[in-house]
């Protein structure tokens, strides 16, 4: 009887544990990325403000926070080689380095140069709104997620703009590709070229 109770309690605990974080995460703004670029490992930085690994694509460099010894060994072996990193992007204010962009890596593997064009695709769960030009933002539509505001390029589909405007002030999930902006800024501000725009669903931000 005691064993049965224990098993039941364990089962309830496991199911609760499995369900709770997923639901919680989906309600929070997040930026999932899959980036293809050149890996550097053994990186050092001013004040030690680095994870020690970076990925560079199309003029953008993000730090890679590697989860375990296996991935660190892989990174060491693939220093200066093309790789694909999948994870969650965040931005951190540093002390010597003003702003650090860090991908908390979940998967890291050798990139197939023939298949994967250098760059980053993103799945963003955030809030849409009009860009505030007076505040230095790009005109047009922007998405805010995890403290980061990204300008959007909605030109891939003629219906995207009106669809986006219908979502202003609301949570959305969009998928797209990171590209350099065309505005006369140096360096140009990155934009997301949107492929798909939807209201969040239960599986909005797939792992």
């Amino acid at each position, binding site marked *: 009887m005691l064993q049965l109770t224990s098993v039941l309690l364990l089962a309830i605990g496991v199911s609760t544990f499995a369900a709770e974080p997923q639901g919680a995460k989906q309600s929070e*703004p997040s930026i999932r990325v899959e980036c293809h670029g050149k890996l550097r490992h053994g990186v050092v930085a*001013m004040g030690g403000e680095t994870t*020690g690994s970076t990925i560079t694509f199309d003029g953008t460099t993000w730090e890679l926070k590697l989860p375990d010894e296996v991935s660190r060994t892989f990174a060491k072996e693939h220093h200066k080689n093309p790789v694909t990193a999948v994870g969650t992007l965040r931005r951190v204010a*540093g002390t*010597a380095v003003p702003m650090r962009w860090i991908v908390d890596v979940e998967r890291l593997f050798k990139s197939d140069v023939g298949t994967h064009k250098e760059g980053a695709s993103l799945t963003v769960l955030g809030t849409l709104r009009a860009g505030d030009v007076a505040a230095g933002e790009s005109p047009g539509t922007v998405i805010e997620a995890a403290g980061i505001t990204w300008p959007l390029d909605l030109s891939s589909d003629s219906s995207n703009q009106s669809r986006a405007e219908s979502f202003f002030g609301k949570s959305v999930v969009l998928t797209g590709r990171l590209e350099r902006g065309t505005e006369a800024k140096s360096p140009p501000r990155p934009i997301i070229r949107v492929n798909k725009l939807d209201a969040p669903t239960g599986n909005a931000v797939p792992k």
Partner: protein
Amino acid sequence: MSTRLAFYFGAALLGMCLCGDSLDADDWVVVPKSSREKRLAPELDLLRHCDHHHRFKGVSRKGKAVFDVPSGQAENVQSMSIAMNSDIPRISTWGKRLLISYAGQGAKPSEATLKAAGLNKVEDYERGSFLVVEPQDAVSSKTVEALLGDDAVAYAAPDYFMSISPVKPTAEAAQPLITGSAPNDPLLNQLWGMQNIGATQVWPSFHETPKIIVAVIDTGVDYNHPDLKANMWSKNGRYGYDFYDDDDDPMDEQNHGTHCAGTIAGAGNNGVGVVGVSWKAQIMAMRFLGPDGNGSTSDAVKCIDWAVANGAHILSNSWAGPDTSPELAEAVTRAEQRGVLFVAAAGNTGGGGNDNDTAPYFPAALPNANVITVGAIDVNNAPGSFTHYGKRTVDIGAPGVRIVSTTRNNTYDKYDGTSMAAPHVAGAAALVWAKTFPSPAPDRAQMTKVRDLLYENARPVPALKGLWGYTAPARVPGGVLDISFLNNTPSNGNPTPNQPSPVGRRLVENRMKVDPAKFR
């Protein structure tokens, strides 16, 4: 974070509230913290203006104001017998706007917060992670409480109309930190670190180390800076080497290395800008970190070997990474074999630092006998909020918060970091080396003696106990760099060189033979 938060709120609000006001001493009172101000550090108190609205005016620490005071208001505050921080550059003009910095990883301050605080958003400057806002009305306690209540607010500060390039001499500079033969460098009184480490006590009798070469292994050095030019090491008209671009022009394209160089050996008593710990040492410029502040371990190794092969006594290393490599460890060992001191920044991690004992950063955590790893302290001898620590792997503390020094193109700026602490130790080592040895040379016995003198004379600070300095050859738990002992030491004495310490972590034996000619 809370100290910084309090500081900037104080700065912001005092500036906003004092503009145009004329205050009397009776207008102020120190108000004990209430539960609503729980985010202030324990030692901080709010200063409130005792008018009908009980408006916030600033923040004090143990009775000492920790906020900027706008031009023309210093007398008002001094009349309240509140000591002023002397290391803060004079703000030429106060603007009406505030800057609100986003918290590190969190979201931006919400519209609801701004509304509750009575602030209009003027600009969201993402690159700098701050909002520019304009108060709708006078800043009040409501503003403070609304901002304190939003976790997305890291700190607020006035949007100064100011030029920090160069930092202007302050009124306080007329009251020198030291008497007697004080250098005439106009920013002297903003260099709190020089007083903290006892350099100002030593300078009247000893301040130049022209025979000592200190290699700044970093982003390069602006060798044309008027406060550095006279002290640049050179060989065949070159000031060092650039392994980032692989050429012989180590010009800084970032500022970080130039800042470090100014703390080590900014030209002293030249009537310009700052003064280094050593007024005259030779700065060897080594570049391997790029404009983004990143570099590779392999290029760092080349810098170390190049500097050692070209006669450096001391290597100042304000960089690190979480991965180590045998190549880096071997390069540091080669330096040790040649009697070259290796000063390393412990590293920075925002929001409380990192224990290098359990999560090491390198080269800071290397066990070599020539490595001195440095943590950062602030003007109150408290650890910098970002500083890495480690009983076994960090050796000593030094000033690393709000450090004014040289930056590129004849400018000056104020930086935080263990990157700023390590140069204080490197400059101090130059003074100790030159004062201790009549013929200072890269030599293992001399290097060991210099290292041990720095450790033996560290000033114990109770608040830093538990953070660093527990393992030999470091000798003072919670110790802070203090070279005031040099004031009582005869110049160029003939001390008996110490043997390397018999125990402790810095015990790597030198097993490698190196041919310096192999390195450029």
